[in-house]
């Protein structure tokens, strides 16, 4: 955090992290053969059932993580843009750095 701010790239570690958080549960659910089994059991539940219920909870946690990653990333972009507008002489305004994909 020193010197002039560098423009944020399209792919940042935070965005990559959010993408992984969103993809992980999707892949886990689709990989049906990995959990179609009765053992190991947990509290009377076959693996097939308790694993999927656990996956629901994990998905919730990953979605929180993704939300914050995106929020921090967007905050940085906004601050950079504001700083760039403040620093730029002349007619500042419509340079749309923000038009990048989600």
């Amino acid at each position, binding site marked *: 955090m020193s010197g002039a701010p560098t423009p944020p790239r399209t792919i940042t570690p935070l965005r990559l992290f959010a993408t992984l958080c969103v993809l992980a549960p999707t892949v886990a659910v689709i990989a049906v053969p990995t959990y179609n089994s009765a053992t190991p059991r947990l509290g009377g539940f076959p693996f097939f*059932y308790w694993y999927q219920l656990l996956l*629901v909870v994990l998905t919730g946690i990953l979605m929180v993580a993704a939300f914050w990653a995106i929020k921090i990333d967007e905050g940085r972009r906004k601050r950079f843009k504001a700083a760039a507008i403040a620093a730029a002489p002349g007619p500042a305004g419509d340079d749309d750095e923000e038009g990048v994909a989600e």
Partner: protein
Amino acid sequence: MKFVASAGSGVHGVELGIVTGLFVLVAVLGFLAARWRRTGSQRDLLEWGLGGRSFGGFITWFLIGGDLYTAYTFVAVPASLFATGALGFFAVGYTILVWPLVFIFLPRLWSVSRKHGYVTPADFVKGRHGSRGLSLAIAVTGIVATMPYIALQLVGIQSVLYVMGVGSSSSSFEQDLPLFIAFVILAAFTYTSGLRAPAIIAFVKDLLIYVTILVAIIYIPMRLGGWTHIFSAASARLATKSPTTHLPAGSTLLAHGNTLPFATLAIGSAMALFMYPHAQIGVLATKRRSTVRRNVSALTIYSLMLGFVALLGYMAIAGGFTTKTLGNNTQHAVPALFDAMFPSWFAGIALAAIVIGALVPAAIMSIAAANLFTRNIYVDFIKPDASPKLQTDVSKWVSLLVKFGALAFVLGLDATSAINFQLLGGVLILQTFPAIVGGLYTRYFHRWALLAGWAAGIVYGAVVAWKQSSATQHHFASQVALIPWTHQKAYIAVTALVVNLVVLVVANFILRAVKAPPGIDATSPADYDHDVEHEEAVEVTAKPETV
């Protein structure tokens, strides 16, 4: 261990009293909702149809949750586990997959809709692709898919009435009267209060449902001898060979060949869910872009609950219920289980939870279908200069019409056909995915190619779904069918989507080659990241009005 009680014999007074009392409470709330959080003119369709787009995170959580986890979910998902075992548990995978999908694309839909004042998904399609025809296709698909869904909410209420002994009367007028009264009240408060009514009722609904489920998953397994016993009883029953087909009904693990159906059912249902207009309505009614993303993690609590609700199907097996003792209708499994397991006062609360659980989605669905009709059929094709007041009036009347159509559906045909049409609805609605979600990211696809793909997917899906037969049913007997030229089964909606995409790509290639007119795109790239914070909240013109 047998708990089979008196399902369907004699009226259960205490239960009926509690259900009626809670229903009256909810109806009063529904009417009072018209005065709640009013931000603008009640004559505006955004007011009646989207609650003034004023809902923050807390209300949205209840509204979306109340919207997606319907009475039918509570009845049908456990019934499916009761009848076939592990395959029915795809509903949990499906509700896991839904949230990442929502996280990715709904903020974009929210932004572009807020920027351009879109009320329905078909509004967006029209603006984006410059095609009234494509927008009409999306709107009609939405209405056709939603109608049987509303009818199914009535099936949920019917099964509760049956278990309380109200629906078992021989006179068919007496049998249908309670359902009729419930529906007239629902129709009336939706008419006066719009989206605000289900938003308020959703609080009561969820409170009742969470209490019911928490008690059910602790108390019922205790009475039935624990989870181990429940799973082994279910496993044993499902493995019993049917006397007619000489095949086991199912199993508590996925049988060979059921892996792909399970995965495609989960993916296809997840992709289809937010194509339903009633699901999008909860999102479009939010105040800020970030509201939905912030909510997604908390919404997974509903998915967890659904997982336990599904297992009620196995509890019904362990409790000794058979298809025969349920009056030959597996849809009665959960209400009958509650009735047999709980003391009658708590059974009343649990059954009321299901009935009220039907009201919230039925109201939202009828509003969504009405908005589609008004915006994308009435205004686009019948009366282009309709004032906002006229649009609201049309929507209100159509919402009544839609609900009574659903009622006639359930009373005139049987519950099975409502379920069949709902399954077909899932197949149809998924075919709007390329135009809506594709449109959020790219204009690469030509509007006529999207229309051709949609038509191909609809025809393929409808024909294949219609052709599925079983020992008991001639048509619509299954949601899964063989993929052409293979020996592997998959969810029909997903196979139809593949057909849709193939036609889309080929038609797109041809249309671009002949330079067919692409239509005007009313949106710009920045619209998809639009948020109201930047714009000094034009929407919140708070002028309380007393009419």
